[in-house]
């Protein structure tokens, strides 16, 4: 039987699958359920300094090739998050805290406090395409901003830092390199692409209340794979390959492109919480059939 265990920045995982931020990650109880259902690590929904209501509904829709969302970082704020996630003892997999801010100083303030929780790593999405004041819309998706924000957070915590990048970025290699130089421990690639839009032709209006939203799931997968492939060639730190993974084959593709771990988000919409156990079983089955004993043998295989 193939061995799915893997180590990411010193974090030991039962399998390479990571619950992506913003999917299911709102509470301790739900994170526990996702971990019990087989996620090798789980990520919280992104936390900001102050509570945020996010955009009005509709915020999340599916289309023929994935999900489009403009949730807009709704979250209860760092103060409440510290209480919600104070005790992570029940969660059987490592927990990653996702932290957002409007500038480097705010990132550091939130990260410093979230890092006091029993979390394994801090993730910094510099790449949300649909929340004014944050991510791409605040110019965080440049090598300069990436360097500044990563440095500021590195100064307040010794825990692993994952910098999450946008598939839209022109200078993706430079952004990943800037993150690495500034002290990032891994790159999460990628966040949602776009933004895109869906129009209801009877109503003659965009359906999302914010009109546009990040595109994820199946449509994103080939783009995410190429991003992971490129980043693997540019930096030495590990990559968490995220985007459209819904089957064991997809996860193995990500590993071969250069990922050490594999994020899963939108697939929960089609497959439920059970998707993690299913993908892991499919990976093990493929590895057995193809004489692959360990995950490491697959990482970056497409480059050799």
């Amino acid at each position: 039987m193939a061995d799915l265990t893997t180590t990411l920045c010193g974090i030991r995982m039962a399998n390479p699958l990571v619950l992506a931020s913003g999917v299911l990650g709102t509470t301790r109880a739900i994170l526990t359920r996702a971990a019990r259902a087989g996620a090798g690590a789980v990520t919280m929904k992104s936390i900001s300094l102050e509570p945020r209501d996010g955009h009005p509904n509709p915020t999340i829709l599916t289309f023929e090739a994935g999900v489009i969302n403009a949730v807009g970082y709704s979250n209860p704020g760092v103060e409440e998050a510290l209480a919600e996630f104070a005790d992570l003892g029940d969660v059987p997999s490592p927990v990653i805290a996702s932290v957002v801010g409007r500038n480097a100083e705010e990132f550091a303030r939130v990260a410093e406090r979230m890092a006091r929780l029993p979390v394994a790593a801090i993730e910094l999405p510099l790449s949300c395409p649909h929340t004014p004041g944050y991510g791409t819309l605040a110019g965080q998706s440049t090598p300069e901003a990436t360097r500044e924000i990563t440095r500021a957070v590195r100064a307040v915590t010794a825990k692993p830092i994952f910098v999450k990048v946008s598939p839209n970025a022109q200078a993706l290699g430079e952004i990943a390199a800037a993150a690495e130089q500034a002290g990032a421990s891994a790159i999460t690639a990628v966040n949602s692409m776009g933004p895109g839009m869906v129009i209801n032709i009877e109503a003659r209006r965009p359906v999302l209340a914010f009109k546009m939203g990040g595109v994820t799931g199946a449509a994103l997968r080939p783009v995410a794979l190429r991003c992971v492939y490129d980043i693997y060639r540019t930096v030495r730190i590990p990559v968490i390959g995220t985007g459209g993974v819904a089957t064991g084959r997809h996860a193995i593709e990500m590993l071969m492109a250069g990922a050490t771990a594999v994020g899963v988000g939108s697939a929960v919409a089609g497959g439920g919480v059970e998707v993690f156990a299913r993908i892991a079983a499919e990976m093990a089955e493929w590895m057995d059939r193809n004489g692959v004993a360990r995950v490491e043998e697959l990482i970056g295989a497409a480059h050799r």
Partner: protein
Amino acid sequence: MQRIVEQPVMARVLERRDEAADLRTLWLERDMAFQPGQFVMVWIPELDEKPYTISALRPGRIALTVRRRGVFSSRLSDLRPGESVGLRGPYGKGYAIKPRGVLVAGGCGLAVLAPLKDALPDAPLIFGARTRGELLFLDRFPDMLLCTDDGSAGQRGFPTDLLRPRLERGEVGVVYTCGPEVMMKAVFDLCERHGVECQAALERYMKCGFGLCAQCACGDQRVCLDGPVFDSAALRRMEEFGHWARLKSGRRVTLNEYGNWRSCRP
């Protein structure tokens, strides 16, 4: 893997009818395979999207029964025949029908139980409201067992007062309930004391409606997909049931604060 496209489809308002003081039924042009307890997401373009139950079904048409509370429910109530709203769904798990059921509705929770009563015409239906003017569906269900907090119609007291003797006589196999959560908690606790199964439809703020975002979390359950109807085994494990709910930001507050925010009684 099956992929469903979760996007609203517009439906025209055919007719509307006033049920009680601030409660109105809208009939919409649509056929739907709907199980009592499920819900749909109702979209008013450029305003918002919220969950509602289907309160009645006929060939080619479905009904929404809406209490006027805030901006959205007022705009929805004021839609005129010929105008349209978007619908997606139905979503969630409905009531699981078992022998010797009794229905216990509180306030506009009757909208949720009404199609179940249509399916189980012989099952007793206990309906409580605060006062006479808030009663609804009196013509549709003439055999309802009524109570009001102020005694202005039916027995004076809580729906639990009407349920208790039936549980004591051992004539109840299962209780289906929907209404303010404090009432459902009281109904559940009473059922527990008598060892009778209770199925309650919970209400939480929702975003996706199909289990992706966990905005609607109650314990480790997603109300939109794992519920909204939960049985006794699930309710027992949910420490938040009857006590806490989450605001739009995800902040956990008491049911009272949640109710004030939703401008409805918890």
